[in-house]
């Protein structure tokens, strides 16, 4: 579904991605973790060309992301993305947030888009907030609306860029619950997160990044079950992040 082949990226002379290769198969949930500044978010954003890259190839659903003749809007419409800071459109109502791209990009009729929007708000448990504005919702609610907005495009895969790291602790679970549901329904997901509990529960594979390179890429059971087999950097990271959980 999503395949990264030797992807490298530089900001000027600084290399942010170093020869990254991995893949997300259909129906798979891949969690990407690693210390901050390790290039996780950059990597996930190259998959829908929000971040350009200089070397390598990325294939999404049979389409080359970096190719010049690729229709990017069409490609992006097929991949849902959820951001750290939600990025709901504050000047539009919750419903309008969900219908805008359905109408403009998919060419759906307004009524049809609203019906799909209502279904998805129902699903994330926010039907009561259809006519509110994003600023009137809590962080957890906003992130659930953002997930609904991405799902409204009926994407073939979903990208999550640290979806819970800007949330107050008591709101993290309401968002993770929605993501767990999504995973159990077979959605293809690539998730950048520090929530190791989530990774243990639903991930098929874990990718560990450090300094722009993919250091580990292995099944969840191997990643969490065999700490001795891990690289030095991954051990350090895991000991820091798991010491309190």
């Amino acid at each position, binding site marked *: 579904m999503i395949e990264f082949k030797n992807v490298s990226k530089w900001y000027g002379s600084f290399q942010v991605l170093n020869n990254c290769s991995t893949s997300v198969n259909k129906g798979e949930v891949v969690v990407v973790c690693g210390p901050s500044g390790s290039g996780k978010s950059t990597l996930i954003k190259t998959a*829908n060309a*929000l971040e350009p890259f200089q070397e390598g190839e990325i294939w999404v659903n049979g389409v080359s992301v970096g190719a010049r003749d690729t229709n*990017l*809007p*069409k*490609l*992006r*419409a*097929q*991949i*849902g*993305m959820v*951001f750290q*800071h939600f*990025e*709901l*459109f*504050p*000047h539009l109502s919750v419903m309008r947030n969900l219908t*805008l*791209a359905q109408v*403009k*990009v*998919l060419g759906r009729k307004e009524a049809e888009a609203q019906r799909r929007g209502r279904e998805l708000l129902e699903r994330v448990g926010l039907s009561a907030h259809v006519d509110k504005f994003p*600023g009137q919702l809590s962080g957890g609610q906003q992130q659930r609306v953002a997930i609904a*907005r*991405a799902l409204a*495009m009926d994407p073939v895969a979903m990208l999550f860029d640290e979806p819970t790291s800007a949330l107050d602790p008591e709101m993290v679970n309401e968002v993770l619950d929605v993501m767990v549901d999504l995973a159990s329904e077979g959605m293809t997901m690539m998730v950048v997160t520090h929530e190791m509990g989530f990774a243990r529960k639903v991930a098929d594979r874990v990718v560990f990044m450090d300094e722009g390179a993919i250091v580990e890429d292995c099944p969840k059971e191997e990643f969490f079950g065999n700490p001795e087999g891990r690289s030095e950097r991954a051990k350090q990271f895991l000991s820091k992040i798991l010491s309190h959980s």
Partner: protein
Amino acid sequence: MNGFDFDTIVRTAPYLFKVGLVFTLKLTFLSTVGAIVLGTLLAMMRLSSSRLLSGVAGTYVNLMRALPLILIIFWFYFLVPYIVGWVTQAGRPIAVGGFTSALITFVLFEAAYFCEIMRAGIQSIPSGQAGAGYALGLNYWQVMGKIVLPQAFRNMTPLLLTQMIVVFQDTSLVYVLSLTDFLGAANNVAQRDGRLVEMFVFVAVVYFIISYTASRLVKVVEQRMAIAR
């Protein structure tokens, strides 16, 4: 000239307001609308990743802001007929009339200032907003038109209105083209009746009242927006 003759003002007020002020307000309003549209396009060019587009827009804005308005008014007054003639393939200069000439001049000149306001407005919107739009499959014009610009306009409303007050004052310069704006109308009366002091004091008072009231209103708008956020 014996004493301050209020009667001149009372007698000529209908002419001053109905002809002069209406002209001034019409020119202010149309210039502002045109300049905001052109200024927004220039701001989008300036922020474009294309060096050519941002270079062209940057040069234009800097040039306009470096020249005195009165000079530009003269230039365009003499140039516009030739430009229109050239654009319409008429092969000769076309008389466009003082109002049209002034309007074109003000749109082109003030657009440079509105461009800088809109540039700041666009930059005040976090880049993640545009990113979210692109991620949904929207194209550049949809992202700008539906997501970035509506928010930028809202953030910049007080500054846009303040600049409109500046345009209102700037329009008085069209009297050099012998147009009958508010100042021009007052000048006509002043010359005819020999009542320069009365007329120019009156004009100053009216300009002050309108500008001051408008800027107080902008303050109110600003406070309303601060609360709404």
